[in-house]
């Protein structure tokens, strides 16, 4: 069954959190995972759920050769 907007945001946040340090997820990976678990979910809602996570600062986009959605953290290059 499709998730509500709030549930969807938390579902995605959980995925990003669990992957932290192990696998970098792209926005499309998140969308595919949502649709696998909830085939009736509206794709546009996924897009805006990610936007909400980014706009509130709970997640950030990162770029390491490709662009990913991650939990904010201090990166290696910023350390001395």
């Amino acid at each position, binding site marked *: 069954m499709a998730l509500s907007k709030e549930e969807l945001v938390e579902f995605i946040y959980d995925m990003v959190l669990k992957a932290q340090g192990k696998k970098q997820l792209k926005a499309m990976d998140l969308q595919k995972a949502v649709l696998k678990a909830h085939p009736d979910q509206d794709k546009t809602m996924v897009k805006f759920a990610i936007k909400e996570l980014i706009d509130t600062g709970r997640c950030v*986009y990162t770029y390491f050769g*490709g662009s990913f959605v991650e939990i904010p953290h201090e990166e290696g290059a910023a350390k001395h």
Partner: protein
Amino acid sequence: MSDTPLLDQLESGPWPSFVKDLKRVAARKPAAKDLLKQLDRSYKDKITHWKHGGIVGVLGYGSGIIGRYSDLPDEFPGVEHFHTIRVNQPSGWFYTTQALRDLCDIWDRHGSSILNVHGSTGDMIFLGTTTDELEPTFAELTAKGWDLGGSGSAMRTPSCCVGKARCEYSCYDTMDFCYEMTQEFQFDMHRPSFPYKFKIKCSGCPNDCVAAVARADLSVIGVWKDDIRIDQAAVAAYHAGEIKPRGGGSPYAKLDVKADVTDLCPTACMSFDGKKLAIDNKNCNHCMHCISLMPQALRVGTDTGATLLLGSHAPILEGAQMSWVIVPFTEMEPPYDNIKELIANIHEWWSENGKNRERVGELMLRLGMRNFFKSVGLEPPSQTVRTPRANPFFFWHAEDFEAEAAGRKYIKI
């Protein structure tokens, strides 16, 4: 003793010296001063001293900021953070001095005062500021009507040639099309959600002054379908040496219309009998050689539009590709809804199937052109290939048999 003995050697010579220019700013900006010192160190060590920063950005965007950190922050504290900001350029790189001065003032207040006019993507590049200055810079830019360009796995800043603003060759309004596409895809420019980068470059004619065919996932190149317009009197004037070839931009004072133009026509579709130039326009492949040589005598036709080509990228990873023809001709009328729709279809197909860091041109090779054409809803035009296949490994699908039984040439798309 100078801080930058090696760089100092680049102050002499006739070409403008970036070292001289940067030194002026170094006198008032510690970041610029340390940049020169670190660069001099690189000249000595023969290696770079930068590290990539992949997290810094402005709130809400995943594009437009490239993080940089010095790997010698203790020696060069002024460049410990030295992040880049991509500022989306106006179409055709036209500015008023007022607008440019505003941009410079913003950068003087918040950054190193060093910039690229312009970067490879077409954006104006502000080089070097700290993490703390990113939001204030962004706020000032947007307040003045500017925005950030694309970076990362996103729609990149579209760019275009000067087009109809100042070029008689331009077969469509490149500046307007570029602006419209930039506005249409703002969400995708700032929120990187694609497998990899996606670039649109717009050239007004087959001379391709923005190198669209080489470096844009979608290359939009202007073309005409009807006849080259001829002014026979001007042809005669060229032949008589009254007008210099190529607008006067070559070492050759006088044009021999036969030897220089018609004999070099790649399709041999032109002839010149000493008086009159004849063109078999049906066999012209619009290479532009004759027009470039005789701009006062020949003009592109009036039934104009663009060819859409897809797939080019630099050699990473499978080797460089140039874009190839997917739509031989499309009219270019605002608001360009047909093209916006096609681009959205391409994005969807690519996002669905592409691997991380796989450009759309690479995906087309991996999955095949049939898959691509069907998925985005295009008929395969014969112009899409230079030659058909030479091998016998072609296969048939149920839908081909259905088409055959129904007396259709192709499957219905």
